[in-house]
């Protein structure tokens, strides 16, 4: 390509859910936009994150479900799984979505550049690609380079010691899987493989898996996993791992005792590291904090006013929808609009069985914030739709202000929690009260009625539960 002059209004680095959304919005607002991506459109989320994990979870769910239909009067002699076809399904899902992102970018006239971007100075980015090297000059930049799996020195990634990407791409169903780290990503993958009949063991260093989530909810997920044969060890301190002839061996201290675990694979899922170390931030003059996160203001503006940063590389939860939201704000700010990061709450979902979805204040966080609250909890087991679906595990919990019944938090564990959380999120974001939820008519028989009933419970006169 050589040195030919290339310039743009807004350059976006990284085409994950932060970057590609920012690029589209900036283009919609009249900017000439260039997006640079070194791997695949869609970023971690679409290629090796949110999406492929959910495709595997769907397939695993069906495999398990098909073997447990007796209660409905159905008998299935034997379900055969061809894991290469499962992987093909996953690939087809990913391909549909990444192709879609390409079309959306083109449809919005965003220029797509393949290559690795590095800042040369505050107005120039160098692109390295198979075609060579070139510079792009820009007026504004949005950095959206995302994150990568954290590697522990004691458990270096290899053939048998794998990260989430490796776990998503297994060629066959292993007999056994060890998982270090019981966070959201770990637990989701454990659930999928447990459904496929894999012998899974979780080794978690903290006192519980899914730390930070209401433990009444996590205990239901743990019960479900244990029923499927998953062993869960907490306060398990892994000392090291090594590959063996046909697997991996992990040394671990649990309750002061040394224990050795063996399995076909070891998934290490202990957090993600922001991709801020090799992109020339010093050259651009963009400041990072001690964790390697880029410092931003409420418009996602970095220390260099015309350079913005969004997604996993700035503070806050590492979630795709947070990245996308920030992407829109940054794009709108560049276009001169008054957008700011201005949300009351961000929902988070764990695609476990049953699903967990939480938003806003938990009982504990409200207490810590000094808010006088009421916590109301209604079980799926008392809901007609849940019973007719034969999915009665779980509950909806609302956290409301004691003084005025305003909804400030919600925790759902149960079927379709991921769908149900939207209503509570909207209530919190728009400042509604439990009474607003209680007096809004919810269709019968639907799971949404549980939200209404929980709200009635908060107000003191629940119909479908005896006080």
């Amino acid at each position, binding site marked *: 390509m050589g040195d030919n002059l290339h310039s743009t209004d807004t350059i976006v680095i990284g085409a994950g859910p932060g970057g590609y959304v920012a690029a589209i919005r900036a283009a919609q607002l009249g900017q000439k936009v260039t997006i640079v991506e070194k791997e695949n459109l869609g970023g971690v989320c679409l290629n090796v994150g949110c999406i492929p994990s959910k495709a595997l979870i769907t397939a695993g769910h069906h495999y398990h479900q098909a073997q447990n239909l007796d209660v409905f009067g159905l008998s299935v002699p034997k379900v055969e799984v061809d894991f290469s076809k499962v992987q093909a399904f996953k690939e087809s899902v990913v391909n549909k979505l990444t192709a879609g992102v390409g079309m959306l970018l083109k449809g919005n006239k965003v220029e797509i550049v393949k290559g690795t971007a590095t800042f040369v100075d505050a107005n120039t980015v160098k692109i390295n690609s198979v075609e060579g090297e070139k510079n792009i000059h820009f007026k504004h930049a949005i950095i959206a380079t995302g994150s990568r799996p954290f590697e522990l020195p004691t458990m270096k990634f290899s053939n048998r010691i794998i990260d989430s990407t490796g776990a998503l791409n297994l060629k066959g169903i292993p007999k056994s899987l060890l998982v270090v780290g019981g966070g959201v990503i770990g637990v989701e993958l454990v659930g999928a493989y447990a459904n496929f009949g894999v012998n899974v063991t979780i080794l978690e260093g903290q006192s519980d898996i899914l730390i930070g989530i209401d433990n009444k909810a996590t205990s239901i997920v743990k019960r479900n996993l244990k029923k499927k044969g998953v062993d869960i060890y907490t306060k398990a301190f892994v000392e090291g791992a090594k590959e063996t002839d046909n697997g991996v061996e992990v040394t671990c201290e649990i309750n002061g005792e040394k224990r050795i675990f063996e399995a076909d694979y070891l998934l290490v899922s202990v957090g993600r590291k922001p991709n801020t170390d090799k992109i020339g931030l010093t050259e651009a003059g963009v400041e990072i904090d001690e964790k390697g996160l880029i410092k931003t203001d409420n418009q996602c503006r970095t220390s260099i006013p015309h350079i913005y940063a969004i997604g996993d590389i700035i503070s806050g939860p590492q979630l795709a929808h947070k990245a996308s939201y920030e992407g829109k704000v940054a794009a709108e700010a560049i276009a001169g609009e008054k957008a700011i990061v201005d949300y009351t709450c961000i929902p988070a979902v764990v695609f476990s069985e049953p699903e967990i979805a939480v938003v806003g204040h938990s009982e504990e966080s409200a207490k810590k914030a000094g808010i006088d609250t009421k916590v109301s909890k209604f079980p799926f087991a008392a809901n007609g739709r849940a019973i007719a679906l034969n999915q009665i595990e779980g509950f909806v919990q609302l956290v409301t202000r004691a003084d005025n*019944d305003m909804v400030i938090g919600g925790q759902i564990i149960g079927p379709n929690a991921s769908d149900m959380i939207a209503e509570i999120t909207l209530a919190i974001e728009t400042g*509604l*009260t439990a*009474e*607003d939820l*209680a*007096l*809004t008519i919810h269709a019968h028989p639907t799971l949404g009625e549980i939200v209404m009933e929980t709200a009635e419970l908060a107000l003191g006169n629940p119909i479908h539960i005896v006080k």
Partner: protein
Amino acid sequence: KKNRVIATPTVRRIARELNIDLTLVKPSGKNGRVMEEDVRRLKEQQGQMAQQDH
């Protein structure tokens, strides 16, 4: 239902309890949305007017 005043169910209930006709309230919310404060303000004004009458 044609001239239904925009207000949340909570605000509607409060208006009923305070005997306030929602169509008489001056809305302060977006799109003419009546807020709880608007209802309470009118109630207060009515109270003051009633006192002045005495």
